Every structure is written in C-alpha cells, then in structure tokens.
C-alpha cells in the first residue's frame, strides 16, 4: 500500500510554520544574521535563495533515481553551485550596488544549509512537483523572515524604512539604536522572533489538543 503523499498545498505551506527554515529548523543562520540590516537587503537575499532553491530542488528531484547514495552530497553541491553562479553573475551585471552590499554572502549560498537541507530531506525523496512547491514554500518563508528581521533592524537601527525610493521618514523624538545594525542586534531580533513564533505555535497546539483529545 502506497503511503498517502502529502498534497502540493501542504508542501508549500509547511515551510512557513512547521518547517520554517529560520525559526523552526534554525538553518541558514549565516545570511539571516549577516545581511538583514535592512528590509531591501533581506528581500534580495531571499529572492536569490528562492531561485537557487527551486533550481536545485528541481534537478535533485529529477535525478533522484540516478544519483548514487554514496556520493549524493557532492552531486547536490554541483547542482546547487550552478544556479548560484548564475545568480552571482546576473546580480553583478544588473544590480551591482546590491551585489556590493550582499557581497560574499551570494556565493556562500552554495553552502547555505537551507538548500542542502531541502535537497537531502525532501527533493531527494519526492517527485518534481512536490519539490518545486517545497522549494517555493521554504524560499518564500525564508525571504519573509529576512524581510521581517531586516525591517525591524533597519527601523530600530536607523529610525527609518526604505523600500527603493519610497522612504518612511524617521519618527520624531526617536533616536536610533546603532546596536541593532550590528551582529548582536541581529541575534537579539532573531531570538525574540523565534520565541514569539514558538509561543504562537505552542498556543495553537494547545488549542488543537483541547479540541480533539486524541491530539
């Protein structure tokens, strides 16, 4: 009897709460902490990750029956490195300013745990459509996380929020806390958000449990 395969919708949605890369699995910490000094940085980093993740998930899923188990990780890395090079070159060519800000963290996507994690734990075992949904879900959740952290740090650290040319002006009387733009600020924001998400999940779980005692 075949195990009932989860729906495509579930594969997409699970990345946001249950398998949230940043707050539930705590993978991809390096860019999460390093580039989230502003909302825009977080957004572009997220977009790059979505592209790489979808690309790699598709190919890992396609080749999952031919990849020998013993050397699967090197093969994954090759499959991941290809889109990373594409992203890097495109960024360099068309948005050099952003490329300068994100800098080393773009090539470092190769070793980002999220990508390898999704390849190893999902795409390697699932058909292509599910893998695409998984990549989109995880990638978008990751992008959202980076944007939220980035927005909080940008606002507290500079007193304003800039989205392209649209700049929310600095609030009067508010003195920005420089620490939010430094790594400690990143850790504090991450920790607080992680705690809040855990509280929300725990509350929801409790409610579910009281509704159906079988849990």
């Amino acid at each position, binding site marked *: 009897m075949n195990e009932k395969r989860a729906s495509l919708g579930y594969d997409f949605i699970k990345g946001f709460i249950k398998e949230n890369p940043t707050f539930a699995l705590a993978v991809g910490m390096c860019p999460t902490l390093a580039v989230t000094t502003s909302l825009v940085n977080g957004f572009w980093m997220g977009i790059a990750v979505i592209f790489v993740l979808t690309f790699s998930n598709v190919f890992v899923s396609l080749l999952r029956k031919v990849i020998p188990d013993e050397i699967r990780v090197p093969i994954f890395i090759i499959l991941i490195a290809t889109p990373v090079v594409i992203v890097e070159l495109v960024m360099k060519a068309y948005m050099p300013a952003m490329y300068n800000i994100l800098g080393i963290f773009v090539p470092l996507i190769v070793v980002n745990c999220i990508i390898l994690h999704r390849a190893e734990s999902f795409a390697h075992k699932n058909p292509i459509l599910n893998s695409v949904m998984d990549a989109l879900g995880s990638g978008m959740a990751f992008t959202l996380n980076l944007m939220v952290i980035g927005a909080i740090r940008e606002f507290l650290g500079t007193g304003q929020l800039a989205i392209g040319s649209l700049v929310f002006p600095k609030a009067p009387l508010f*003195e920005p*806390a*420089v*620490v939010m733009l430094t790594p400690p*600020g990143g850790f*504090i924001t991450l920790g607080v958000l992680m705690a809040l998400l855990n509280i929300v999940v725990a509350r929801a779980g409790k409610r579910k449990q009281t509704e159906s005692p079988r849990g």
Partner: protein
Amino acid sequence: MGDRLLVTPPPHVKSAKTVQGIMLDVVIALCPAAIAGIVLFGFRAALIILASVVSAVASEAIYQRAVKKQVTINDFSAVITGLLLALTLPPNVPVWIPVIGAAFAIVVVKQLFGGLGNNFLNPALAARAFLLAAWPLHMTQDWVNPMSYDAATSATPLAGFNATGQTALTFKEMLLGQRLGSIGETCILALLLGGIYLLARDVIDYRTPLGYLGTLAVGTWIFGKPGELFQGNPLSAIFLGGAFIGAFFMATDYVTSPVTPRGRLYMGIGCGLITLVIRLWGGYPEGVTYAILFMNLVTPLIDKYVVPRYYGSGHDKMARKGGGR
C-alpha cells in the same frame, strides 16, 4: 493537645540571613555612592537613578505578571539592577536611556534566562554594554561638570590619562569624585564606604575586589607609562574610571561570579587583567564593563575547575599514586 506539630527535615534552626536581607544590604551599600552622585552632578543624576530603578522594578513586575510567574519584586534584586545601571551612566543622558536599559537588563538579561539566580551575565552591566552599543554618543559624551552642574563635552579623565600617562587631578579630587564620570563611579570615598559595609556584613568576599584592584594597580604601575616600565600611576588607575564600583559591586555579584573563595580571587584577577589590557592596548578608553562581562562568561569554567579541597582527599591522592598506608 489539638495543635499539630510541624514535621520538617533537619536542620530545625536556620541562620537569620535571607536573600532579601542580602539584597537590601547591597542597596544600602550603594546609597552613599548614589547620594554622592546626586551631590556632584545635581538633580539630573537623581532623575536618572529614579527612572532606572522604577523601570527595573516595573519591568520585572510586568514580565512576571505576563508570563504568570510569581511576582518577586520584593526581593530587592531589581532595585539593585536599576540602581547599579544608573550609577554607571553619564549624568546627562536622556531619561529614556536608563528606562530602556533597565527594562533590557531585567527582561532580556535576567528574566528570559530564568530570573533570579539563572542569568549568566550581570544584568546591569549587560544593559550598559547594550546601551553603549546602541547609543554610543550619549554614553560617551553626556558628561556634567561636578558641582557646577553644567554640561561638559571634554573627554573623561581616564581618556586623557591614557594619552599622557599622567593626570591633572589631585588626590583629594579623585577621592571625593570631583571629576567627569558616570553618576556613581567618581566618588571613591562613598564607594569605599559601601564596600566596607558589604565586607563587614559578610555579603561579599574580599578576594574579588582585592584581586581586581590589586592586579589593576600593579599592572598599571608596571606597564602604565608607554615606553617605560614601573613608571605608571597605580592610584589613578583604580581611582579613575569605573574600576572601584566594578570591583566592589559588579564583579562580586553572586549569580555571575564563581562560588568558591579561590574562584572569586581568580575572578578578581581576571577582571583586573582584562581591564588592564583593554585600557592600555585596546581601542576603548574604559574596559571595566567588558572585563567583568567576559569574566561572567568564564565563571562556569572557573566553577568547574576551581573546586574546594574535600575532606580526606589526601588519601585518594595517595591511593592514586599507588603508595599510602
């Protein structure tokens, strides 16, 4: 006899020492420094102390109410945190600085790690470090001239002292605290009074302040003057800056310092060495905050390796050597 007898495990008598009493002793010991700060830097200092203490106590109460824990503001530990934080702030900072700092100290540094007894950093110092990183300009420039109460913009004596290796202050000025500096750190006499009170009440161990100030004084004497050995000024090294308040009130914090007497000595020496290194060769003019915070982090390690000699250990040692009776 209708009354029931109480049955509890021994011992059936307990010492009069309580957590609350100890904390109250620390508050009392900090009072001279706080009063000296108000006298030296005026109404502004009083406002900051008040804001900090109120914010600390309120944060503790609100947090504990919010997470449905027992509210423990009556143990005075939040008062100490608020007071200590205020005493390490420049007198002219905006009032919201101590408010945010105290809330950060209580909620993030203390309560999130489990409340009293479980924080791994000294809350007041961690909050000070946070404020220093968040609003560096306020934290390094909002000085007030003592007694005249007008804002000053010059660097603190310690910063000047580092550049020249000498200080223009007289011994009496240093002792009474008539210099630029944080609210509670300048008046050495008041701090000493509080420190002696704590020592007399057996609240703190003399080893920590002794190790701290001793190491700092000797180290400064040896290396204090650039290019020359044994020419530094040890007195101004411990009288200027925050070493005194740090040695007596911060490095001796029970929760974040080692539990054994020998460990406490190492804590003092470690603080002294790191302060010395930061002051003489580091980028900051003052190293007390980071020195103590660093040693807070090392404390579990000290507790692991610096253990008291247990009774009868000589026999075990001999048995291990294969000799013995």
